[in-house]
């Protein structure tokens, strides 16, 4: 074990290998407030990568309803239950990570799901956290809540799957931080399936190897965003490259959202893997739940998110979500537009900060029809 810096925990932690950050790190921001669980991302991923034999119940991308949705069943609560106290001293994690809490004979604290745990990917879908009192529906704001959590591999800085593999068949690419299982080297020991606290490595009973999200690296290599990001009709996702916190660039939309405005947060940072999918927390969800799921910056994140109307730069960064199939590495804005650029400083997209408003006559003389909204 080696001491490594985990900025999400604001402390050093123990990891199986020395700190070795890639030249650039694949990262995503998901805005949970905009997700409608249409599963277009899920289907895009499924049809692209996991439509084969042995992959029937395998979803590299899934969208689950929290608090009662899980894929695989109970994946997060099982680990949270085993992890023990997960207190934070202000912004510093005082509990143990999955590496530090590893029991004797194990490299990582984990559990191996059963086949049946993958059989119900829509478990708890659209269920709310509690029942409504009679008549509450008519009384405006009520306390029942739920939200949609879209999940993919986090391409962690300190992957638990990589640490657990006794064959070193899992590697993190130096050029972009994508975490991959070498399919020629894997022997299907399922140690990664057991170790990944997000349960995003899967065993394929036909190839007899473990498989996982590959970050759509063939697209990344062409300067394009992954399939799940490109196809998101709710435009909740932005993929880019995240710098180290101390090297954050204010004109990199991911750096700006994650490091500078701190409005998007890692999922279960207490696991200690330094995951690289960052979530804008759902604003309607009780504080305790958010603190457990997204860590101690949740309050500020929601405050910043709610004030986005007064922050044109943050608004500009948000409006780039779903605006281009290309990876936006740099952005700018003026009083009218957000502008996205690629790594070569070429302009990719312009998005109006406020959609233009058109008022049209009720009667269209050219087509000789009345315009009206069809309910």
């Amino acid at each position: 074990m080696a001491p490594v810096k985990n900025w999400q925990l604001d402390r050093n932690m123990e990891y199986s290998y020395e700190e070795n950050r890639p030249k650039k790190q694949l990262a995503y921001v998901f805005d949970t407030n905009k997700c409608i669980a249409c599963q277009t991302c899920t289907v895009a991923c499924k049809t692209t990568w996991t439509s084969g034999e042995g992959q029937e119940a395998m979803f590299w991308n899934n969208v689950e309803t929290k608090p009662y949705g899980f894929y695989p069943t109970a994946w997060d609560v099982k680990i949270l239950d085993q992890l023990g106290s997960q207190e934070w001293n202000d912004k510093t994690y005082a509990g143990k990570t999955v590496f530090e809490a590893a029991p004797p004979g194990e490299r990582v604290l984990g559990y191996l799901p059963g086949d049946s745990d993958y059989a119900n990917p829509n478990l708890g879908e659209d269920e709310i956290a509690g029942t409504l009192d009679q008549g509450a529906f008519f009384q405006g704001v009520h306390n029942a809540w739920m939200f949609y959590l879209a999940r993919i591999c986090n391409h962690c800085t300190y992957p638990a799957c990589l640490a657990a593999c006794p064959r070193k068949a899992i590697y993190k690419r130096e050029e972009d931080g994508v975490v991959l299982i070498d399919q020629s080297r894997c022997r299907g020991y399922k140690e990664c399936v057991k170790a990944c606290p997000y349960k995003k490595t899967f065993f394929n009973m036909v190839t007899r190897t473990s498989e996982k999200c590959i970050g759509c690296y063939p697209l990344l290599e062409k300067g394009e965003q992954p399939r799940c990001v490109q196809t998101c009709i709710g435009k909740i996702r932005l993929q880019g490259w995240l710098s180290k916190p101390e090297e954050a660039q204010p004109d990199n939309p991911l750096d700006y959202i994650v490091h500078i405005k701190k409005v998007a947060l890692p999922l279960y940072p207490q696991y200690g893997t330094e995951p690289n999918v960052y979530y804008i927390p759902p604003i309607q969800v009780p504080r305790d739940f958010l603190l457990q799921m997204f860590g101690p910056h949740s309050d500020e994140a929601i405050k910043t998110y709610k004030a986005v109307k007064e922050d044109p730069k943050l608004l500009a960064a948000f409006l780039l979500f779903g605006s281009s199939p290309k990876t936006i590495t740099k952005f700018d804005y003026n009083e009218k537009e957000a502008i996205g650029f690629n790594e070569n400083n070429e302009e990719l997209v312009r998005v109006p900060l406020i959609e233009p408003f058109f008022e049209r006559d009720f009667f269209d003389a050219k087509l000789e029809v009345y315009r009206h909204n069809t309910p």
Partner: protein
Amino acid sequence: MKIIIFLLVFFMMGLSAQAQEIQVKKISVGKEFFEQPNAQADQWSQVPESRVTLLPQNITTPSLLAPTINLVQIKALHNGKWMAIRVEWPDTTDDHQVTTDQASDAIAVQFPLKEGDKTSPFMGSKDAPVGIMQWKALWQHDIDKGYQKVTDIYPNTFYETYRFGIKAAEEAGNSVSRQQRKSPVEEYVAGGFGTLTVQPHQDALASGSWLNGKWVVVFARPLKNSDKNDPRFSAGDKSVIAFAVWEGGHKNVGARKNYAMWMPIVFEKK
């Protein structure tokens, strides 16, 4: 701490290993005896049996904390050109399928490629590699009954997009994904933890069957050949041998196994 455990285990196994020696009896049998390994062949009754105690692998992580198979019974013979090893062990379940929560029963036999006393029993070491033969119930089942399909395990599975799918590991040439398997045994070379590598040239044969709570597996291989990844033996030689057994019903896989340290092995001269 690990070193202390290592030394303690080495010392204890050394004591028990001294008491035993596996005799590879020379018996006049033809090549076909080895080409179609048969645990029930009459010749085995002429061979003395050795009992080898197994320990749970807890030298390195991931570990097996408690043993799942305690003992294997060994018989070995050679005819001057070929050798065969018959291994028998109790296992209440025949585990020959793999899914996320199922693992296969398996056994491996290990020889040093250089002199035994210089080679680590734990997958060898960089300068002193080992040759390994592994048999799996899963592979035996592949050959006897056909390659495991999803519908063998979940008969009601319906899926209509298979034609678009790929089998990445098979396309990458990974031997564990090979659907046209011809043998239930695979030969490896290793030089330390995590270095297990499938040998480019496969020379071993094996056959195994489970009956009444017991596995019996027979391995066969030439005593010597031109493969630099294989051990070379002659009548009269002394070497060492080690074993590993996986109990699929307890999800034993990879490093989570029961193992025996180096045991002396003598190839009868006559």
